[in-house]
């Protein structure tokens, strides 16, 4: 467990999330991708803190990332709900069309 | 972290599990006795209930449902017992504790949140309308009880100036926290009933849903769910004893025995409460939780914080 290995894992998580965020069509799935990217960021921030400078202030950065994630989630839910409300369930409509 | 507690090696985990199951069985036994009395039989005739039910469910076959999400269902059913055990990991038994995590209070909180996921998965797994509605009900209910629960357990942590359960217990040397933060204590007891899905918070497994999350499980699956609920209730009581009722503090008896006696007594009281109260519908619970209980707990927390600030400076 060195800084490099942890960062590699974090980069892997970040890139999987990036793939999801780019490729998914549905808002909530895009959100999942973003979450996964932030997950990687958290891991990286933790690793930087531990391996480079385990000073108290460093933890605050992590706290900020976690908060950002929560806010992103809340906003995401709100946006998804609004989209759903205003456009109706386009996905479901699509499904019916396909089946006929 | 704390000098008062001895951390025992992980080899003692099985003993903790046995103790937890014994407490769970105690809860079920009290419940059986109370039920027998309510039905007009001698209370003694209900004492064998947990054993008889265990035998019955061990003999029963498991049920399958069409298009069930088997792995998630299994996680949901089996997880409850595991989470209950993880909860008691940070609860000291007298002087001993399995792990005196410096953030034990937060750990307990995190484990209780895992129950959200597990109950919902148990409802989701069987692919049946009733159990699914039960799972959703639990989430609705969880939103109502979780924040009050969080603030309720924050109060003793603030008073003790530490998130370690050992420190919280040590801070109650003279005066139990339950005495001067009664609101937080009562809210926490309510939350224990809620995350173990007991009346008045039993709507997710309610009779009106034919058993809700329990509706489609039988045999060992059902046993795991039922035992998990009782174990959660026991773990919640044990934690309440540690953070509100002075843990092992008490005269005469050794500390570990005090912990057990208090836990058993609190558990019995909670079982009694559960039998006294009808279920509250979850949609009526949410406004109550947020509009009434949450401000009360916050007020309690405010009082505690002011006392600590004033007393500390």
């Amino acid at each position, binding site marked *: *467990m060195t800084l490099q290995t942890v960062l590699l894992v974090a980069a892997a998580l970040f890139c999987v999330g990036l793939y999801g965020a780019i490729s998914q069509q549905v808002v909530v799935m895009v959100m999942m991708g973003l979450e996964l990217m932030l997950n990687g960021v958290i891991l990286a921030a933790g690793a930087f803190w531990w391996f480079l400078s385990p000073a108290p202030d460093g933890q605050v950065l992590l706290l900020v990332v976690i908060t950002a994630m929560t806010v992103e989630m809340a906003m995401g839910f709100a946006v998804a709900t609004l989209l759903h409300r205003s456009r109706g369930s386009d996905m479901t409509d699509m499904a019916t069309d396909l089946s006929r | 972290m704390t000098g008062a507690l001895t951390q025992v090696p992980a080899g003692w985990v099985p003993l903790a599990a046995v103790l937890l199951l014994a407490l769970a069985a105690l809860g079920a036994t009290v419940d059986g006795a109370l039920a027998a009395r309510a039905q007009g039989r001698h209370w003694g005739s209900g004492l064998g209930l947990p054993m008889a039910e265990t035998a019955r469910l061990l003999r029963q076959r498991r049920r399958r449902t069409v298009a069930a999400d088997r792995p998630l269902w299994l996680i949901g059913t089996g997880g409850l017992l595991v989470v209950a055990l993880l909860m008691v990991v940070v609860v000291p038994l007298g002087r001993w504790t399995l792990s005196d995590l410096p953030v034990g209070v937060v750990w307990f909180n995190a484990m209780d949140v895992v129950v959200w996921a597990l109950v919902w998965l148990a409802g989701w797994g069987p692919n049946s309308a009733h159990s699914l509605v039960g799972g959703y009900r639990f989430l609705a209910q969880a939103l109502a009880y979780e924040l009050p629960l969080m603030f309720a357990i924050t109060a003793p942590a603030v008073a003790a100036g530490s998130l370690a359960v050992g420190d919280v217990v040590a801070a109650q040397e003279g005066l139990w926290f339950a005495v001067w933060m009664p609101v937080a204590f009562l809210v926490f007891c309510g939350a224990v009933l809620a995350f173990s899905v007991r009346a008045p918070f039993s709507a997710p497994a309610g009779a009106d849903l034919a058993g809700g999350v329990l509706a489609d499980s039988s045999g060992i699956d059902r046993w795991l769910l039922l035992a998990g609920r009782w174990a959660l209730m026991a773990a919640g009581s044990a934690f309440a004893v540690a953070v509100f009722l002075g843990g092992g503090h008490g005269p005469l008896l050794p500390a570990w025995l005090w912990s057990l006696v208090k836990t058993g007594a609190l558990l019995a009281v909670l079982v009694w409460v559960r039998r006294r109260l009808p279920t509250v519908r979850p949609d009526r619970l949410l406004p109550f939780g947020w509009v009434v209980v949450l401000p009360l707990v*916050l007020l309690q927390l405010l009082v505690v914080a002011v006392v600590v600030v004033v007393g500390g400076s």
Partner: protein
Amino acid sequence: MVDDIVFWGLAVVSVASGVAVFRVDSMARATYALAVSFVTVGLVLLLFGLDYLGIVVVLMMVMEMAIMAIYMIMFMGMNPALMPMSMVHGKRTAVTVAGLTFAVLAAGILLVDWPERRGAPAADLTLSLGHAVMGSKMLVMITVSAVLFATIVSALVLALPRGRYDTDGADDGDRASGEAPS
């Protein structure tokens, strides 16, 4: 040594479940795969001695994913599991971009000459985090936070329109008669 084994185990689970999020067909499974990924990262933070933050990550993310699952199922009305169909657009671009990013990041991680560790972790990290956030005014902040939160909640309650189940006893009858199905 033990730390290494635990770390690698957690790392593998974390990345694997991260990949699973976009591979499985079931919304419930995808959501909970993401939850597993978060939980493992939270546990890795515990390895770094970040007890509080690690457990908070577990706590918040499990809670969030439990709620997320509802949204997933609600808004993914059309589910790939029901009718196998691709919900993905620009798959090739996405893979390329993600792969390139990973290559760049990995190169950077491996090539940069990381500085030596400076300083040592505080004895009580949770306390030091508190001090870092709130300075010496922590106790005051504890008091204020309760007040602030109470204000937020009351503001929300006042501002909230009627929801799906606004049942305040007497209203129910109105609703039942007023909203007969179309």
